């Protein structure tokens, strides 16, 4: 999607550049030079981050190699490091959060994109969702500590598991609230973009409103909805502060959704300040893994969106 936008932009630039003669031509060139410079700067930054991580993580990579990914022990006193608990913790909390958030974000997108496109309620709800996205994560963490934690503990006591109040479930709940705005606002936008004549055609064939949403709107907006969900997933994987406050920071493989665990981002935030030597290198190794995990999610996302948008364009035509 973004590819086509930038292509048309490029075409515009080209035709304009040719049609305007003389002095503006030079400023046109300079402008393009600045654009190219800032564009390549981003790539350079990305490479710089990658190289820095690689170099500083080297002592740990040499020592633990790929066993780092299957090691279950994280012990700074004996300098044994394995990142599996954090890898599992990150993926577990993020996907659980995604699972919890999808019904809500989908409902909000349909509500705002299809039922209440305009008006006071819609405006109010839309800005409420946007404000939700802007709240600093430490505030989510505090709120979770004061409200969500006792609530989860109450449930845990009722069903008879260790009543910690913090753990995978608590952090997934807070994450799901934090990521709803990302998928909901993008979802709303793509749903409003569904062409009216498609929907009218369906109505004229006797479809109910629910059938229109199910068979026309959602399939048409599929790639955008998926993009929103992946954006939300990326955010959930990288979230640090709120998760650190609510996950219980236990460096072991979680045994259930109630058990305390730890994520990659939060173990780095917790331990880096006091870490030296191999411990510090191992934390940076985790950062490197986190870097690749987010990259894989992004690449997979772009691939899925690309595939879905081709399919949906085929279906529509």
């Amino acid at each position, binding site marked *: 999607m973004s590819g086509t936008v930038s292509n048309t932009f490029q075409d515009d630039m080209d035709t304009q550049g040719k049609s305007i003669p003389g002095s503006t031509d030079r*400023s046109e060139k*300079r*402008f393009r030079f600045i654009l190219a410079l800032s564009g390549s700067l981003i790539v350079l930054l990305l490479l710089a981050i990658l190289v820095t991580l690689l170099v500083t993580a080297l002592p740990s990579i040499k020592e633990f190699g790929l066993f780092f990914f299957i090691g279950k*022990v*994280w*012990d*700074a*006193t*004996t300098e044994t490091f394995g990142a599996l608990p954090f890898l599992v913790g990150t993926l577990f909390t993020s996907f659980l959060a995604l699972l919890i958030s999808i019904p809500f974000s989908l409902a909000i997108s349909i509500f705002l994109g299809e039922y209440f496109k305009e008006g006071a309620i819609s405006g109010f709800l839309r800005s409420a969702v946007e404000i939700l996205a802007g709240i600093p994560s430490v505030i989510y963490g505090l709120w979770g*500590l*004061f409200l969500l*934690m*006792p609530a989860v*503990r109450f449930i845990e006591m009722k069903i008879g598991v*260790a*009543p*910690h*109040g*913090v753990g995978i479930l608590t952090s997934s709940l807070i994450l799901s609230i934090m990521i709803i705005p990302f998928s909901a606002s993008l979802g709303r936008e793509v749903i409003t973009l569904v062409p009216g004549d498609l929907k009218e055609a369906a109505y004229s064939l006797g479809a109910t409103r629910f059938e229109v949403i199910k068979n026309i709107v959602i399939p048409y907006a599929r790639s955008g909805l998926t993009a929103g969900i992946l954006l939300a997933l990326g955010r959930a994987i990288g979230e640090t502060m709120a998760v*650190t*406050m609510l996950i*219980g*920071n*236990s*460096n*072991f493989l979680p045994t259930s959704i109630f*058990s*305390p665990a*730890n994520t990659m981002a*939060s173990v780095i*935030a*917790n*331990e*880096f*300040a*006091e*870490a*030296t*030597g191999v*411990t510090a290198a191992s934390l940076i190794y985790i950062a490197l893994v986190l870097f690749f995990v987010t990259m894989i999610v992004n690449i997979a996302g772009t691939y899925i969106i690309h595939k879905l948008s081709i399919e949906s364009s085929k279906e529509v035509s």
Partner: protein
Amino acid sequence: MLVNILKVLSLMFIVFALICGSSVASASDMELLGAGATFPQPLYSKMFDAYNQQYKVKVNYQGIGSGGGINQLIKKTVDFGGTDAFMTSKEVQSAGAPVLHIPTCLGAVVVTYNLPGNPKLNFTPDAVAGIFLGTITRWNDPKIASANPGVKLPDIAVSAVHRADGSGTTYIFSEYLTKVSKEWKDKIGVGKSLNWPAGQIGQKGNPGVAGYVKQTPGAIGYVELLYATQNKMPYGSVRNKAGKFIEPTLKSVSAAANVKIPDDTNVSLTDTEAAAGYPISGFTWLIVYKEQKYGGKAKDRAEALAKLLVWIVGDGQRYVEPLQYAPLSKEAAAKANTLVRSMTYDGAALVK
């Protein structure tokens, strides 16, 4: 439009250059740089402020953690570091030259809890170790109850919480437990961040641990004495080596240092021999290179540093108690003074 952008850019560049230039200028002006432990930071801020008013020497101390303080000193980006734990032999080795540890005050770690009515509790070393090892799981366990005759302990689960972030507090606490419990020594050991028993909750910083304890009935955690008193949290007395239950106070923490202190002050005060001493106490140090002529450092800068350190372990000690830190005992202060006086510049003593 473009011209405007260029103008703004060049203006920004000039401003940037000016800022850089001025910061270079102020560095050659006398501003001593330090970084390290966060625990004594409020005290150091107060001390350095008072020192600046009196002697017109600015000191900039950043609380980045003990590990960071040691790193920065070794990288020679600061004049002095701050640490809650004596440097390990590995760290001393990577420093390349002798480093002096100058004690500035004492800190203590207290055991805080949340029980109905919050009674004053006594803890034996075994009880503390058992709770944090996860072997004591109920509050009415005989190991806790036997030390607290007359207190009715409820039959609720013990929910232990530790510091999730690497910290000097954890270091002192684990050092104490390693001395008093063999099981702890074998299973967990000493460190700023540990391999805690599975399923135990960790929280970030003193506020994180305190918040969890306050929120959870039956919870128990460990925080700095200063933090516990400031937040009016209940904390227990701990039995020391002499067999007395000692309540952590500034006096009993200072008293922990009433032991024979070696010349380099590399002494661990946990599980102290001192009869009136609180057993989970420890020094916090400022660290400097013994030989100050390195990396093109000017002599007057080294002199200013030595003067500052003499003041901290001498006159500056009067700021310690009002801020709820435990001051150095006479013997410790004397040793600290001797250490500062052993600092040299190109082989010659800096303080006469």
